[in-house]
């Protein structure tokens, strides 16, 4: 829809936004995302502080994964910009790592755990060249890091859910990125895996990295994370966990969907699909 310019009312949109510096690994500005033209994220503004563990929390269907995917350009944005260290995603791609949802792949695929982790090195290896000894060793070290060295040569369908998740984590480590996006890494994993994942996250932070995690367990947020984004179709609150986790904010996030906002999403979707 064509935006119309009203100098009188759109004042402040630019000036009141915090001056985003190249310090911030990720800054999202006025991002709206629609699935089949149905808005699922409304006008998100966010600047990620560097060197923090950040949780995205919110109820089901709040758009948590969508926020990650749209930031990475995996799904198109209806509007808004995303910058990485003040530049475009293309420029900073090599510094960004990604752990997709575990269910997003076919775990019966004929590759070993090591093969999957080595995929994190492909970007460095480049086109047409095979995975050399050096990169294999790095991949092995990453597997070792998540306590999976013994299972390196197992086919991935023979791993438990938690082990599969650790393979994904190891692959992200192999990417040697500065900013990580992880989509529900704690979903359906055993206690041992959860501990090992959080250990790795803390190490990443100690090494100056930033990690943004879609998380579904509110209780563990204060112990695991520094910062949180409370999300329910729009950002309800964001910032350091103690500041953000107030009764009021949580109520706003989880206290039922704003029915009118969902209805509005549906109505916008219908209108722009050309339906009544």
């Amino acid at each position, binding site marked *: 829809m064509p935006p119309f310019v009203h100098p009188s009312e759109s004042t402040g949109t630019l000036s009141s936004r915090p001056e985003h510096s190249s310090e911030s690994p990720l800054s999202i500005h006025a991002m709206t995302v629609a699935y089949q033209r149905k808005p699922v994220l409304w006008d998100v503004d966010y600047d990620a502080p560097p060197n923090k563990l950040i949780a995205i929390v919110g109820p089901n269907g709040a758009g948590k994964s969508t926020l990650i*995917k749209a930031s*990475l*350009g*995996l799904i198109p944005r209806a509007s808004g910009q995303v910058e990485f260290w003040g530049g475009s995603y293309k420029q900073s*791609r*090599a510094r*960004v790592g*990604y752990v*997709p949802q575990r269910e*997003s*792949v*076919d775990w019966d*695929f*004929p*590759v*070993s755990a090591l*093969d*999957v982790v080595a*995929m994190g090195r*492909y*970007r460095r*290896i480049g*086109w*047409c*060249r*095979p*995975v050399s000894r050096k990169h294999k060793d790095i991949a092995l070290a990453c597997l070792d890091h998540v306590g999976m060295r013994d299972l390196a040569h197992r*086919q991935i*369908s023979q791993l438990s859910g938690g082990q599969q998740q650790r393979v994904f984590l190891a*692959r992200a480590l192999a*990417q040697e990125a500065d900013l990580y*996006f992880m989509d529900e890494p704690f979903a*359906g*994993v*055993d*206690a041992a895996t959860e501990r090992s994942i959080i250990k790795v996250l803390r190490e990443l932070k100690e090494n100056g990295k930033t990690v943004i995690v879609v998380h579904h367990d509110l209780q563990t947020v204060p112990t695991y994370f520094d910062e949180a984004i409370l999300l329910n179709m729009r950002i309800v609150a964001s910032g350091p966990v103690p500041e953000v986790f107030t009764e009021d904010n949580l109520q706003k996030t989880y206290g039922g969907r704003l029915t009118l906002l969902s209805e509005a999403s549906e109505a916008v979707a219908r209108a722009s699909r050309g339906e009544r």
Partner: protein
Amino acid sequence: MQSPGLSISEIVETLTFQSGFNTNVVILGTTLLGFASGIIGVFALLRKRALMTDALSHATLPGIAIAFLAAQSLGFQRRSIPILLIGATISGVIGIVCIQFILRHTRLREDTAIGIILSVFFGAGIVGLSYVQSNAPNNSAGLNAFIYGQAATMSSSDVILMGSIAVIAVLATLLLLKEFTLVCFNDSFAKVDGWPVSIVDLLMMALVVIVTVAGLQAVGLILVVAMLIIPPVSARFWTDRVWKLVLIAGLIGALSAYTGSVISALLPRKPAGAVIVLTSGVFFALSMFLAPSRGVIAASIRLLRIRLRIAGDHVLELSHDLNVSTIPNQAFDELSRIRGWSLPLRWLLLRALKHDDSVVRLSNDGLVLSAKGVARGHRVARNHMLWEQYLVSYADIAPSHVDWSVDQVEHVLSARLVARLEQELAKQGIDIPPATPMKPGGAG
């Protein structure tokens, strides 16, 4: 199949490329094609595009008819294979594009879209062929060959074509195996990682198109999909690694094509395409049943072993529960009834307990346990208790494990896990003492 006058020497000659130039050309050409399509098929299968290739091959037909008419109106007197194949490629690609269009712009799903394109395009092709036949009957005879294939008409230039396609397939796989695997396994990761997913996809699709079009003449458009799908599906039973999958699929493809075309050369009126597909069907059946890791027989044996071990555990546990070291026949029958063990299973079970594990000896009184048997019974019983305790005391953190039934878990706990369970339970102040050992054999 009767084979009048088929001598051993004739068979050997055909197998070893000594039965005349034309036969050799056909055998060599189809073998190369089988090799290439087996390799390329791996990526179609891994990308879950098996039936998309079927739509592609059917959609080539109208292109063939139109290309023929176009060539005629341009003054070509005889049918020119390259022009027909170009027509086939174009209309096949249009078919694929149409599928994508339907998926993007309508509510119809992939299976429906594939079925629509496959049948409508093929119908258009049939109309085209019947038009050609009634308007240019003299030169059109060869067009039908594209439907069922006519390997017999292969020429040496076709062999060169098949050879080059095989080389392309091998080269592409050698160079791009890594990229193809990445995109097939996890395209969203590939995209974030900066790989041009749609270009890699396009390359894979282009290879499929090349193989399909090349296979039209040999096996025909209805069966060419089999050459792409069956070898990789069969190969999947033998291995868990992509590169081995590619290798084995290529070999199975080549072998089925070779065997199929040899049989077709030896027997009268056996179209090579159909024989090749049937041969690969045989390879598929063999792989599905006999392959050591994923094969059905191997899997059922493994399953039976586990069942026998668990059943054996139950028997031995019974001795612990009854506190006897000789299980009376009656008690064993009762247990079998409760557990629903069939007679053959009971027979196998006793055999396993007696011979493989030598924990039991049969006597008139019933099953007499050895010391080893008694110990195993205790271990199982204790594991059972441990696990039950664990579930009870850790009801809050155990939910991810509750789908394991107590019955299953007690048999699969490793010594390390048992130790951990003991630790966890000790933290809660629960101690399960090791069961008191009993004397073996008849003391009960």
